[in-house]
């Protein structure tokens, strides 16, 4: 008897078919709102180069409701990206201290602590630095 294997193919909507795939695609999609924020920064860089009046235009543009909404989405996306990215780090680069591997939980907590430090540093740079000078 001859063989007649059935050759399956990936359906176009394969990524909707399993929670694990939906999670993956959501993670990959975090770059879409991120691109909007990068665009906002590029626009700001352009405005800054054009002088003070134009810089003020950018600052008020940034406060428009739809811009705030999209950048709010970018914030949520970047936090979700951070959540997934920090979890992968101990898998990709397990840190070894002597003969032991550092527990993944410590590495993840350390990275979130880094986010907090960056926030405080940037806040200081943008706000407190001004008070000191």
């Amino acid at each position: 008897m001859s063989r007649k294997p059935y050759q399956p193919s990936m359906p176009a909507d394969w990524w909707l078919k399993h929670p694990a795939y939906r999670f993956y695609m959501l993670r990959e999609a975090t770059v879409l709102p991120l691109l909007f924020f990068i665009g906002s920064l590029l626009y700001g860089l352009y405005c800054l180069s054009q002088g003070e009046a134009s810089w003020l235009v950018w600052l008020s543009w940034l406060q428009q409701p739809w811009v705030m909404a999209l950048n709010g989405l970018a914030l949520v996306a970047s936090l979700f990206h951070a959540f997934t990215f920090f979890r992968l780090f101990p898998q990709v680069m397990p840190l070894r201290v002597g003969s032991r591997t550092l527990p993944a939980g410590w590495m993840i907590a350390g990275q979130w602590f880094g986010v907090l430090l960056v926030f405080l540093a940037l806040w200081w740079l943008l706000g407190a630095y001004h008070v000191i000078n």
Partner: protein
Amino acid sequence: MSLTKRFQRSDEPIWWSLFSAGGVCVAMLIPALIVLLVFGPSLGLLSPDTLSYQRISTLLYHPLGLMFIGAVIILPLFHAMHRIHHGLHDLQWAHSALAKWLCYGSALLLSFLALSLWLLGR
């Protein structure tokens, strides 16, 4: 036979390294930057004069400002375009050399734009 197959080294290490570095920057810096820049004024985290033209030009056009541009614009751009490139393949929309060059080309072009704007403004 697969045993005698000739393998060609992929150029992915370049794009993956940029993607990973960008991923670290997005996770570490972007949340803080969005909170402060976008929501800082209305939340009262920053007073309006801290984002003044004088102060921000002094800060950003400092040589270290270039590193900042690299960390919040250029590397995140390569991060985003790498994911879009692979996403197009995953969705089976486009998997060609053209799609690849459009993705990484636009990241390169916008990075060049950011650098030019920085130099222009100094």
